[in-house]
């Protein structure tokens, strides 16, 4: 078996495709590293500045509990992932922050209680550049490496069949599956050599730069990603062997492979996603906006009907209840809309799972900490923080015996200044555990894909007539 693998390897190493693949992969990986080193420090700096500003405004509110209860925690920023060179995850299209504030509109002549709001604007609106895919690892692996893998394998059986050398090999007393595994290993190693070199150069560049530091967890994640890349390469090699054995003619085998590749890489991830997203369409943004206005108006009208006409000001408790329920309802509405949008995004992504390229894209995003799943984690973090913040306000208020314990009303709350360090600060964290959980399904699918294709290749080769 090793003999066959070695022969394949020597064959490939001297070939044109090996040289071209090496050059291509090296160029891509180096660009990727240079770009990352240029962009990431600025991105991290911008995040730190924004987060520091947010903490500063939060501390400026700590003069009394009331301004904390109405002003809210302010902007909550999403921290950029240090592994963004692995998967861009189209971060440019995703919002970078959530916001907890009251937006200055007054209700019943007082500032309202803060509520969580999920801004929709993305950094991409003013961009008038031609559309393109950023050169991240996900692109290099998902598109280019799979393409290279097909080019290495499309003729590995049909080519030998055409030249007649396969008959010669099989005349020796070797079982067919050994030949197949030998070919598989040969192709695998010869694809992996240029890729590993390119990855090595990429990581060397990144790790020697002093502007970026990758911690142990990041290296662990990179290791996992490399494992996924190996799986993915195997998958395409198996696909190449399967078609090559099934079709018998090199030219035809390449055409079939390219068609499959085009639908895996371009058609399924994008077009099917658009079709899938139509099955769960949320209401239009404008509609959402008007509905929310109506909701607020209704609450206001209900309040006026109850208390507006009476000359005496309503008691603090009544006001407090009105203010808090208004904020709660508003936030619940925001959240419901966000959920609809997320559901649509999920639906669109679910249907793309029949393409291994889409799967690998999602896996990369999960482990690099970018993209959709990462954004969901960010939203979870924000919501957890919002709860903490509210609890903190209520608890601090409770601790003051002089307070009336009516949150959201100036007279009803503790008047003591708050220790600025005691206020909970927002921290956007990522857990590898959770990433694993979201990725488990995709990993399993990838392995299943590989199993099906590998056994397909085995069957096709064993039944092949020479």
């Amino acid at each position, binding site marked *: 078996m090793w003999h066959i693998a070695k022969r394949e390897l020597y064959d490939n190493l001297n070939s044109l495709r090996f040289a071209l693949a090496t050059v291509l992969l090296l160029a891509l990986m180096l660009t990727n590293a240079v770009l990352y080193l240029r962009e990431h420090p600025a991105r991290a700096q911008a995040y730190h500045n924004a987060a520091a500003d947010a903490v500063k405004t939060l501390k400026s509110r700590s003069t009394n509990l009331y301004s904390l209860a109405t002003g809210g925690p302010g902007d909550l920023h999403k921290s950029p992932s240090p592994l963004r060179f692995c998967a861009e995850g189209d971060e440019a299209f995703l919002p970078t922050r959530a916001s907890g504030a009251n937006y200055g509109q007054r209700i019943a002549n007082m500032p309202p209680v803060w509520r969580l709001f999920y801004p929709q604007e993305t950094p991409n609106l003013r961009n008038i*550049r031609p559309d393109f895919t950023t050169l991240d690892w996900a692109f290099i692996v998902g598109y280019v490496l799979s393409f290279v893998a097909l*080019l290495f394998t499309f003729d590995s059986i049909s080519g030998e069949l055409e030249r007649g050398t396969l008959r010669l090999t099989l005349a020796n007393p070797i079982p067919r599956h050994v030949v197949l595994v030998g070919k598989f290993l040969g192709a695998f190693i010869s694809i992996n050599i240029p890729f590993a070199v390119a990855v090595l150069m990429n990581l060397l560049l990144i790790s020697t730069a002093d502007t970026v530091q990758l911690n142990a967890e990041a290296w662990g994640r990179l290791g996992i990603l490399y494992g996924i890349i190996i799986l993915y390469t195997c998958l395409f090699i198996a696909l190449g062997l399967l078609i090559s054995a099934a079709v018998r003619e090199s*030219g035809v085998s390449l055409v079939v492979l390219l068609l499959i590749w085009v639908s895996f890489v371009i058609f399924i991830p994008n077009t099917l996603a658009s079709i899938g997203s139509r099955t769960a369409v949320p209401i239009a943004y404008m509609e959402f906006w008007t509905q929310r206005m109506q909701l607020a108006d209704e609450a206001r009208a209900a309040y006026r009907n109850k208390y507006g006409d009476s000359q005496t000001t309503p008691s603090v408790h009544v006001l407090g209840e009105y203010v808090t329920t208004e904020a709660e309802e508003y936030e619940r509405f925001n959240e419901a809309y966000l959920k609809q949008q997320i559901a649509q995004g999920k639906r669109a992504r679910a249907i793309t799972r029949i393409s291994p390229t889409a799967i690998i894209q999602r896996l990369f995003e999960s482990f690099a900490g970018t993209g959709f799943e990462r954004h969901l984690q960010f939203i979870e973090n924000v919501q957890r923080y919002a709860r903490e913040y509210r609890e903190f306000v209520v608890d601090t208020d409770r601790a003051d015996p002089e307070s009336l314990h009516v949150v959201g009303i100036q007279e009803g709350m503790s008047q003591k200044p708050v220790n600025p360090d005691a206020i909970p600060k927002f921290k956007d964290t990522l857990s590898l555990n959770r990433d694993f959980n979201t990725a488990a399904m995709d990993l399993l699918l990838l392995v299943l894909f590989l199993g099906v294709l590998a056994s397909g290749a085995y069957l096709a080769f064993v039944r092949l007539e020479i």
Partner: protein
Amino acid sequence: MLMTLIRRELLDNLMTFRFAAAVFITLLLVVANTIVLLKDYEQRLTAYNKAVNESHQELREEKTYSGYAGALIIHRPPNPLSIFNLGLDKQVGNKIEVYHAFIPTMWDAEKHGADNPFLNLFTSIDIVLVFQGVLSLLALIFAYDALAGERERGTLRLVLTHPIQRGYILFAKYISAMLCLLVPLLISLLLSIILLTTSTTMSLRADDFLRIGGIVLTSLLYVSLFYLIGLCISAMTRRTSTALMLCMFVWGVLVLVYPNLILTAVDIVPQPNTQISVYNQIKQMWEEWDRENKRFLRNDAVLGPLSRNGEGWGFRLKGVEYSFAPSEDKPSTLLYFYQTSFYAGKIGAESEPQVPLVQDYYGFYNRETINTVQRTWLVRKPALEAIYIQPANLGRMLLRFSPGGLYDAATEAWAGTDLDGIQDFFSTVQRYRRAVVDYFYDKKIFESRQWFAADKGTADWDALPQFSFHRSDTGINAKRALPDMLLLLTMNVILFTVIMLIFIKSEV
């Protein structure tokens, strides 16, 4: 003789598996994507119509003329030809405010009804993109063994024993392969046009078909270029397998890698950071305006001082209710707002003598604002171009080194979804702003009582000039597309000559 050759090549090509596969995959991709794009277009059109109606009503609810701030909103209609090449049609904002205190540009535009941000993760695939990827691949697959294959099989030698010029053979191969490649192109276009015409909301005008014709022509040039690239490789190599490998790598580099690589690399080039200095310059202009304004008010005993934060609003007019909405500054688009919209309710009888003074003041105030806007525009326009347009144009320029970039640019120009097409809309909006300002000057609205009070007569919005936008003429589209098409054509001619030279000199 030529006909015989063409017929032979045609039959050779038509009977192959790759031809069937080519037709099948192009049809599948084009039809599926047309359906998706059509739905998307309809959705955008509905949103547009709704937004236009809402803005129309919103404006009519304003009682004073000054209330038009933030209420006179123009929406950009979606381009029906965006189905062929989406270009910037969806990317750039489609809702823009018209107001005398700033000049509207594409960067001030926002999106009515923002899309679901989680769906932006998927690229929309337009018909041109399908052709760009799939047809080029097919052209190479048709070409790689055209010469190398015949040489290997020895049939080339046979053909050349006949008294035919070598150029004829090349020409016959070229014509027949192009005819074969035309089939999937035309059938898929036909199907997508049929789909478009069955849609009730989509209305294609006669000149739109001319533009589609231009897109077809460009597609032909593009496909032919890739076929010639394949033929060139085939003529240079002795073995089909080498030719195929080279073809595939060339395709991968030209279509897959180069555009993304070069656009990513443009980011590495440092951009001059003029934004802050220009913004400060603009700010200074407005501060000067503010001083003028204060000087005017200081000489006027009745009207109080006025400051930007709105502390001094009121002019000591008794019994007046003000509502006050400050606008946000936008350093990223170099906008510094001095103007704030406000609305005065009923004016009490005791302040009536002061009203002419206030009217006079607003006449001055608005005139000065408009003049300052013109002054800032002189700085703002080149700065915006340097910040936004130049990097984008650099990227586009570098893209032109790949045939895909040329093809994309030319078809964008035909469809009118390129930067120029979008700019057309925004320059129309700028002209419209000018028309509104002129109308206000003509009717002396800036210094009228209706500017700030609605107690004696309200604003008449129906007399306001109407906004209308028409996409540019086909001639202009053609003019914009022509340079790129000519480049494609030149590349074709050069490649054909090169192939001819190689083929004539080569030994069989």
